[in-house]
């Protein structure tokens, strides 16, 4: 699936601060079968961009086309995996994973046979009949990956899917995801603010700047797969990207301080202790 993002801009209105430009003229192309990582500081609009590609949100200007067709609504051809697993708490793992197929009116027998393969693939075979609240965070996330994969989408949109997991589980799932990708060659758009993860997974890493977000630089990663943790090529790249990323993170910090300053001039965020001391 080829995705073209053309001149996409997005503003959000907020009652207190007014309009803020989140995305500023974003342009890039995701090729069929490519594993693309989007890296950027917190709050720069990564999730917003992913939602726009998914069809869950819409740009103010510009457009996203999928295989030449403009995106108008969400579709089962591009399934989103959210940061929180977003499983349905009243359904078992099995029922959760077959949800998408049920929406497609696929018969129960066919559903069951397909679903079990994917549940085994994410190593949840012993938990088919467990409810989400009986699973650990990593298991939930694996179930939600199975739920997306079973629909056999052409593209996976992943929004910091491993963000809330511990380092071990995270590494394990990263390895599993690479395996899945090399087996199925789906197009993957992977959002993260973890540099190591982006370099370890992506064919390409797009670096998005602090607000207003625009694509600051692109890194092509040729290292062979499966990629190993301490690969010197990757570490070299990581350092290179880090310099660029650090600038953006500093900008974010500055933006926050500026905001406080403006607010305190209006007397809204005036530090309390100043008033406490003034009458002594």
């Amino acid at each position, binding site marked *: 699936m080829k995705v073209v993002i053309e001149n996409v801009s997005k503003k959000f209105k907020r009652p207190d601060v007014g309009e803020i430009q989140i995305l500023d003229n974003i342009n890039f192309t995701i090729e069929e079968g490519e594993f693309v990582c989007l890296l950027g500081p917190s709050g720069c609009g990564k999730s917003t961009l992913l939602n726009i590609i*998914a069809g869950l949100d819409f740009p103010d200007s510009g457009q996203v086309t999928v295989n030449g067709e403009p995106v108008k609504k*969400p579709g*089962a051809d591009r399934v989103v995996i959210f940061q929180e697993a977003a499983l349905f708490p009243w359904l078992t793992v099995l029922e959760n994973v077959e949800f998408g197929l049920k*929406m497609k009116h696929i018969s129960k027998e066919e559903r069951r046979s397909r679903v079990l393969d994917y549940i085994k693939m994410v190593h949840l075979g012993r938990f088919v009949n467990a409810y989400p609240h*009986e699973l650990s965070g990593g298991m939930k996330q694996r179930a939600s990956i199975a739920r*997306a994969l079973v629909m056999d989408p052409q593209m996976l949109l992943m929004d910091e899917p491993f963000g809330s997991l511990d380092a071990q589980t995270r590494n394990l799932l990263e390895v599993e995801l690479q395996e899945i990708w090399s087996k199925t060659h789906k197009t993957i758009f992977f959002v993260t603010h973890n540099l190591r993860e982006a370099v370890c997974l992506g064919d390409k890493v797009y670096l998005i700047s602090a607000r207003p977000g625009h694509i600051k630089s692109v890194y092509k990663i040729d290292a062979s797969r499966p990629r190993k943790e301490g690969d010197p090529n990757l570490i070299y790249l990581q350092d290179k990207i880090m310099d660029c990323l650090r600038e953006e993170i500093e900008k974010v910090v500055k933006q926050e301080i500026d905001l406080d300053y403006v607010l305190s001039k209006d007397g809204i965020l005036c530090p309390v202790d100043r008033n406490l001391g003034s009458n002594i």
Partner: protein
Amino acid sequence: MVFFVLLIAIWEAIYRFHFWPGFLFPSPFSVTLALIDGFNDKTFLIAIIASLRRILIGYLIALMLGVMIGLLLGKYKIFDETIGSFIVGLQAIPSIAWLPLALLWFGLNDKAIIFIVFLSAGLIMIISTDAGVKGVPPILLRAAKTMGANDMQIFKDVVLPASIPSIVSGMRLAWAFAWRGLVAGELLASNTGLGQVLMMGRNMGDMRQVISVMIIIAMIGLLTDGLFFKKMERNIRRKWGLESR
């Protein structure tokens, strides 16, 4: 259990101190006798059956209409902005205040009381169903959309099951309110039922009968809640992962 024994002991003690004359404040023993008498001559049984019939009819109608209207309010803005605010207004009126109107509309019979029960339970069902629909986590709706679910499927397979815990809590609350509405209605305007037997006791100056009926009312209320509604609510909340063991 210990608590009940203590309660009865205090009751006996107050009786022994003669704060009130015996006919106004009967002893636990004489009330027990009155209870046994009442069940032997079938007065209480007939009253219980009459009351339960009314509450079941009123409650079931309230359940069906309440869930339906609640779903509509939760789903469609137009209904919410019109009927929704009207219903919140209605809720401010204690349902027993409708009795005079109900008597005029339905006459002095079962229907008037059933109407009071229906109002007591129905409004709560509407409000808790509506709250359930509005409280569906947006992330679940977005997850369903991205898996290609259309509006109808989202409503049936996400919104409806996601609001079940809220609906079930509403059912429990609605039953308690229906029970109150029922007894109040029967006290004031009925010639059968537990409320009426209680009022008859008062009119004949038989406090043993009054207290007997009060005990029956409390027991039925406690039993239905404890054996049925509380269990159902807990099971649902556990299955939905809302309760930690």
